[in-house]
């Protein structure tokens, strides 16, 4: 691994993001809709001074990450395949894994930038109320960890095809499966091995504790290993594309 190679890809992708409207549109919709969720939660009959209000729900940050990450990542490999620039990248003196990591970091950076736009919610809470700080910190940690998993899945989807729409739909399907796994688990016998396994895979269950301020190393390991797993698969797929 050569840091300079990764950095080169990373910077290039960031610049591409800023030169197209996609990132701006995604960020605007994200801030708008999470703001709506936040306002609803604060205006509710029993308002709580927590950030959970903008995280959960159909326009909450978690679900929006699932819906919007594919739009952010679909370009990354699919466009290179379509333009033929993949041939340039794969014949440049850099490793496949460095390409994958550079692209991952670029999309992840964009996602962090997007999240940072929501930081005024906790600031408002602190200004007008007296929230517990720890749950806010762990909730953001959860958001960031989930974002890394989502970007890794999006990157995998993009590496599979030269069609950006196909890439987005595939990534969305995988993300929705992981998101809905906990609901699927409620259908089976509680206590059976399968149910436990599906529940273990579910993004939802691992996020819940974090939003209550419970920092469990198992949750963190879950997110980090899932990210690493999808990045590893992506770099194998990039390598496999060489054979065709």
């Amino acid at each position, binding site marked *: 691994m050569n840091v300079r190679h990764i950095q080169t890809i990373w910077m290039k992708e960031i610049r591409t993001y800023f030169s197209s409207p996609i990132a701006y549109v995604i960020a605007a919709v994200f801030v708008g809709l999470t703001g709506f969720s936040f306002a609803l939660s604060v205006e509710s009959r029993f308002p709580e001074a927590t950030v959970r209000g903008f995280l959960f729900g159909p326009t909450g940050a978690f679900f929006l990450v699932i819906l919007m990450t594919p739009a952010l990542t679909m370009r990354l490999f699919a466009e290179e395949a379509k*333009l033929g620039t993949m041939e340039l990248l794969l014949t440049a*003196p850099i490793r496949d894994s460095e390409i994958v990591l550079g692209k991952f970091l670029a999309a992840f950076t964009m996602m962090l930038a997007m999240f940072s736009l929501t930081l005024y919610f906790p600031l408002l809470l602190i200004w007008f109320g007296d929230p517990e700080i720890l749950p806010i910190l762990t909730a953001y940690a959860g958001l960031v960890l989930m974002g890394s998993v989502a970007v890794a899945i999006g990157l995998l989807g993009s590496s599979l095809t030269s069609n950006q729409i196909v890439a987005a739909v595939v990534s969305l399907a995988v993300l929705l499966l992981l998101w809905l796994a906990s609901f699927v688990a409620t259908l089976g016998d509680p206590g059976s091995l399968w149910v436990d396994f599906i529940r273990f895979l579910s993004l939802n269950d691992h996020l819940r504790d974090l939003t209550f301020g419970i920092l469990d190393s198992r949750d963190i390991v879950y997110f980090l290993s899932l990210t690493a797993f999808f990045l590893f698969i992506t770099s194998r797929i990039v390598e496999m594309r060489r054979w065709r």
Partner: protein
Amino acid sequence: MIEAKGLTKFFGDYPAIEDVSFRAEPGEVVGFLGPNGAGKTTTMRILTGYTPPTSGTASIAGHDIQTQSLEARRAIGYLPETVPLYLDMTVRQYLSYMGALRGLSKQRIRSRIDDMFGLCRLEEYTDSLIGKLSKGYRQRVGIAQALLHEPPVLILDEPTIGIDPRQVVETRQIIRGLGGEHTVFLSSHILGEVSQVCDRVMIIHEGRIAAMDKAENLSESLGGTTRIILEVRGGTQNEITRILAGVPGVQSVEADESSGELSFIVECEPTQDLRAELARRIIERGWGLVDMHTAGLSLEEVFLRLTASQEEEDSASAEPEPA
């Protein structure tokens, strides 16, 4: 500089190339000639490390393309068949990205980019978006990209395809100028181009090397004649054929009426240019010379002759000894 031994690549059951072996010495310009689908691009993709061979080995500047892939790739400048460009970047941004990918330092990138603007005549378009450039200019950006890091080996896949004739001439000049300093390996399906630009020519047919020789030897052994095509008005076919055949140096005359006009294919010795003499004879008789041009062998004819001569050799050597 480039050394390939027994390169073979299968796509499923279908062999794209079989047992391709050759060497290219430092400073040499080697042409790779073949019709579309003969395996040129596959061979180049193997050499550049884009796709691994099914069997066989190759090395670039002494580095094995599989075990020392990164070192080998560092020594190569590659222009793929579809010029790989980011349309939303300016020429300068694109080249500096390519420089960074190849690990050049910032100052080096800056000075090399300026060199490339000059060499590839891109000065007026340094800050234009690549998406707005014409095909010819995009091709130049592609060549600039391949040369940027001063690689000892250049691999150019169909560098003059799809650009207008004036730019073709310029591109060939640029490539010709690269020999000596770089080892250039370029592919083409135009015989004339390869014999103009290259020191040595390798012909690939259906995935196998059919011939390899110095460019002049190859066109001599293949052609042996220069071909002039004339269109004449007035006069009968027999008369004109007789007059043309009477010119010293003419080896054969063939009449052709299929296009409506009466045209003649005159084969003559390659050492002489008979065009002026042929024209004079036609005009003298009061006929109208409507069109006259020279024509080389088409690639199809080259292969016909090549395969025919090989079969002759094969059958000659296979003939049983008289008892």
